């Protein structure tokens, strides 16, 4: 028994002694859903972070120090996210956390970062992350609330009054559904049907027939993954000729590939990054976006807006550290909050103590799918 206790102690000691890092590095912690159901978010996000951290280090680092990126995979599991956030804070002693692919994992760690007083920039969509404002929490992606507004504005222009809503039962779809239901009346729009589908559902024609029976002017789908593509196909298979709106959740080429010809004419709000090559050169973001797109595609294939969120989060942090001149957490936090006119992949960020996102509706472009590619409506 004694001997085994000794061995155990030695083993533990060995396990725990490996965490000495160079003190001079700036440590940026991240936890992303690189595997699991939300891996389409986490995967480009991690690739982006790794690519740009390397680039920054190759160019001499920030305030004379190299960046060390410490990453854990959450698989979109909030339980793991909580432990990894604690690990980043307590064990790895990172200076700032840039991470969380999903709203669930973000919401799960908010109490921890708030308590630890460490700046945290999330890459998840839900508006709940920054409303109400939490002192240490920021985010980069456009919110579902913004997407809903953008869509409603476009509907107003086309004189669409009655909308049949169908949403995914995942976090993104549910949260978007909530925003749509809450905002519709503000734009004089009636929601005639409120249907949903599960993550692994394979056919939504039953729900869509039900929507059709309510005689809407258009169908709006909030969701991500394979669901929206199936919805799009099903709508056209049913012979429904109504305009289709999708959310920014499908803003990737994959959606067009999966939905095929059914995707023609579908409108959705999305970040400018998606249509980088179509942006006029006068557009302020053009340069940033083109550079990011080229860098990413040179290494990893087609760009997605999700990686763009990671790019924004990283550079928001880096710029704030530069301005703060140190990694003092309180000062870095203040500097993030003071971000003005930051040109990111997602838009132009203007943060304030009451706005921890800092994007306006103009960060979204309303797109329409034409001939199997994006086109700008406005």
């Amino acid at each position: 028994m004694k001997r085994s206790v000794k061995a155990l102690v030695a083993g533990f000691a060995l396990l725990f002694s490996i965490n000495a890092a160079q003190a001079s590095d700036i440590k940026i912690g991240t936890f992303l859903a690189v595997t699991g159901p939300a891996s389409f978010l986490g995967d480009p996000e991690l690739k982006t972070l790794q690519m740009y951290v390397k680039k920054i280090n190759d160019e001499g680092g920030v305030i004379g120090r190299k960046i060390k990126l410490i990453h854990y995979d959450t698989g979109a599991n909030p339980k793991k996210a909580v432990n990894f956030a604690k690990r980043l804070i307590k064990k790895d002693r990172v200076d700032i956390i840039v991470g969380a692919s999903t709203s669930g994992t973000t919401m799960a760690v908010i109490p921890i970062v708030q308590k630890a007083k460490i700046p945290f920039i999330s890459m998840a969509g839900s508006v709940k992350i920054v409303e109400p404002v939490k002192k240490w929490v920021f985010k980069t992606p456009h919110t579902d609330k913004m997407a809903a507004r953008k869509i409603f504005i476009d509907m107003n222009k086309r004189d669409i009054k009655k909308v049949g809503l169908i949403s995914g039962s995942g976090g993104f779809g549910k949260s978007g559904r909530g925003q749509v239901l809450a905002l519709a009346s503000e734009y004089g729009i009636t929601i005639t049907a409120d249907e949903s589908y599960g993550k692994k559902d394979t056919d939504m024609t039953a729900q869509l027939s039900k929507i059709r029976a309510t005689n809407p002017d258009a169908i709006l789908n909030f969701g991500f993954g394979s669901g929206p593509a199936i919805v799009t196909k099903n709508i056209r298979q049913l012979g429904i000729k109504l305009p289709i709106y999708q959310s920014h959740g499908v803003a990737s080429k994959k959606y067009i590939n999966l939905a095929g010809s059914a995707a023609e004419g579908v409108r959705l709000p999305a970040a400018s990054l998606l249509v980088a090559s179509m942006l006029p050169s006068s557009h302020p973001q053009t340069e940033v976006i083109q550079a990011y797109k080229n860098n990413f595609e040179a290494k990893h294939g087609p760009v997605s807006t999700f990686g763009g969120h990671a790019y924004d989060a990283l550079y928001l942090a880096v710029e704030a550290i530069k301005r703060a001149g140190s990694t003092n957490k309180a000062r870095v936090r203040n500097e993030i909050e003071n971000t003005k006119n930051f040109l990111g992949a997602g838009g132009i960020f203007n943060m304030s103590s009451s706005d921890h996102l800092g994007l306006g509706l103009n960060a979204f472009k309303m797109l329409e799918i034409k001939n199997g590619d994006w086109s700008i409506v406005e």
Partner: protein
Amino acid sequence: MSDVLLQSLITGVTIGSAYALVGLGFAIIFNVSDVVNFAQGEFVMVGAMSAVSLLAVGVPFAVALFLALVIAVCIGLILEKFAIEPAKSATVVSTIIITIGASIFLRGLALLIWGKDFHSLPAFSGETPIHIGSATLTPQSMWVMGVTAVLVFLVHQFFNRTITGKALLACSANPIAASLIGIPVKRMMLFAYGLSALLGGAAGLLIAPIAFTSYDAGMMLGLKGFAAAILGGLGNPMGAVAGGVVLGVLESLGAGLISSGYKDAIAFIILLLVLFFKPQGFFGKAGEERV
């Protein structure tokens, strides 16, 4: 409302056909080996994903489908040989865990090979739908129903008309007696796994143009197939087929008429009710088990 009903029926029978094929696979394996193969859904995924890959490297469509089936069958045989056979004396709980493990393992393997993206297969014969009233029937739906019907018919004939088929059923009735009268039980087990992998793979190929596929597409289909097999009375192949179609229709009617959010809950509540009140399934034989 009637067009919602009709559309729900069409959708239900289509997806129910896929459940039926998976359920049939469950039933065949259960019949021969008393094992419920939780990895059944992975055959569906392997079939569809293999076809996607083969098409991507330029293999002609029909050949790709055929090779995909071959791959699915191989996975089935490997599963039997290396996971089920070595543990043949295992208890029910052990085999459940082994096959769930196999299912997770195959999913992990698929993740490494194919990544996390969704893929689609082209529809077998165009996408121009046929309109029945205001409901629609796509050509692919007809493929799903048609091929399922043919496969089910063939399996039925196989069990009732061929020596091998009858031998397969004999294994389930009494494996020791079967081996005594010279039926190679081991080979029959392999055969059962191959056959049910074939059915699963076929379901995958049929459904992929409608539902897309990804490395984790198998699990839910597997569970639904299992539910179908139980609804029909475990070990009753034709019962499993009926169970699959019933489950598909109920689900789809639930989504169309009651609540799409609770669709899966409805399916499982029905399953529980059947288990509680008619555990031998709709089509299982009633009666006391002799100890």
